[in-house]
């Protein structure tokens, strides 16, 4: 008898646990909760982490949730219905695709720019043309990633033929493999190069070959009825936001900047 009671009790407990888990899982996905979900390109990870923390510190009651991933992954997640209020991408084309998907509120505005840089283990890599050397293992991001697209455009513009040893999935993967010594040089953003300046050689890609790298910000359908979404977007473009972006190596573009031509 007691065994039966135990089994029944166990079964009831399991059923309750299952229901509770399902309810919690559903509750998480419900739109209109108090959390403001911010999606940002992987290259913004450090800067946006600080921006989110600063905004939350200045606005008690605001609860921001930062998700960072490669820009194409973010666009895919949004296309498949991921709930989000703010999106910052590493290129205009991706932001435009989100606008076309109908999930954007308003037009994208550029809030920051970035530049490309070459990082290398050896000081002998001092010029873009050096990347064509046979004795070097050079890494670029794949052409499907904005950083890879920009790098290939810059190298093509400079007339330098580079054979990338691998189409790396992210700038951070390129940085990691050069740091570990698996590759001799790589093309990344200046913001990433700045973070490893003490360890690796590097130089920014300037002049004709330098692509225009712009980071647009976009309010998404999840921002409706959430004052903190627009509030955070304004904060990113404020003087305080600009200071944080500049500290991470970006060039900030203020609200009155050239971001309105999207």
């Amino acid at each position: 008898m007691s065994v039966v009671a135990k089994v029944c009790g166990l079964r009831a407990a399991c059923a309750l646990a299952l229901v509770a888990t399902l309810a919690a899982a559903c509750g998480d996905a419900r739109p209109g909760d108090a959390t403001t979900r911010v999606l940002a390109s992987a290259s913004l990870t450090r800067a946006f982490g600080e921006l989110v923390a600063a905004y939350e510190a200045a606005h008690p009651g605001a609860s921001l949730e930062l998700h960072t991933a490669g820009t194409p992954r973010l666009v895919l997640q949004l296309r498949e219905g991921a709930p989000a209020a703010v999106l910052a991408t590493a290129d205009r084309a991706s932001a435009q695709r989100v606008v076309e998907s109908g999930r954007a509120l308003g037009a994208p505005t550029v809030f920051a720019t970035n530049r490309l840089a070459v990082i290398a283990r050896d000081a002998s890599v001092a010029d873009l043309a050096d990347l064509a050397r046979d004795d070097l293992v050079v890494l670029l991001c794949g052409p499907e990633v904005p950083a890879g697209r920009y790098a290939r455009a810059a190298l093509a513009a400079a007339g330098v033929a580079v054979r990338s040893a691998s189409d790396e999935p992210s700038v951070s993967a390129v940085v990691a493999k050069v740091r570990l010594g698996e590759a001799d040089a790589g093309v990344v953003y200046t913001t990433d190069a700045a973070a490893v300046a003490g360890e690796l050689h590097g130089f920014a890609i300037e002049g004709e070959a330098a692509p225009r790298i712009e980071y647009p910000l976009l309010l998404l359908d999840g921002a409706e009825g959430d004052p903190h979404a627009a509030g955070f977007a304004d904060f990113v473009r404020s003087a305080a936001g600009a200071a944080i972006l500049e500290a991470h190596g970006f060039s900030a573009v203020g609200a009155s900047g050239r971001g309105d031509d999207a």
Partner: protein
Amino acid sequence: MTRVGRSFPRGLAPLAVLAGLFLLAPLAGLLARVPWADLLERLASDAVLDALVLSLQSSLAAALLVVVLGLPLAAWLASGRSSLRAVVRVLVTLPMVLPPVVGGVALLLAFGRSGLVGEPLARLFGVQFTFAFAGVVVAATYVALPFFVLTAESGLRGLDARLPTVAATLGASPWRVFTRVTLPAVAPALGAGLVLAWARALGEFGATITFAGNLEGATRTMPLAVHTALESDPEAAIVLSLLMVAVSAGLLFALRRRWFVGATTR
């Protein structure tokens, strides 16, 4: 075919059905979005064929290495009980539970150009793993080895100990006992382990992209091609995913007698 001891309590049916549906849902989601119109054209592209060939080559090479290296290890593990064996078994199981990307980083630090083992190998023999096909095979072997070793060991341990003993009593050498008596007796377990290891090698992603890189025609296997396509052309990713499902399911089905030991009617 219902046998005593294998009856199925009706009360479990709803959860069993739920489990089945749960496993079916991702496949259904994939199938619902396949661009059937230009499927063949997409499948016949060089990039897809390159990735498929690379995947089959690397996973089969890994499966071969897994048997060559794994069988002696499994035989030793099964041959007794000691704390050393317990430690080695943990070591063997580790690649199974580690996130593959951690395995990839560890492989880089060991077999990379400036790695612990990779540096002397590159200096003395000019062998290179990073960004090379050899790296794909090493990554796949690393993650697949535990599946074979653990399955083979459990098969060897389950073997009726009287069989090898009788053979030895009849004058067979240890080597002859192993190859003529022990191995044939545990063949189903070895087959099951091989299929599991091969399937794991075929699906390997994290360690590969971290350790071997991602270059079309050299190291971009099917899982890496799916990942890469997902960033630029989700439809292409769906086509590649469908192909992976078809290849994996087809091979598992073909080898089902080996994998589901005793589950098929003979």
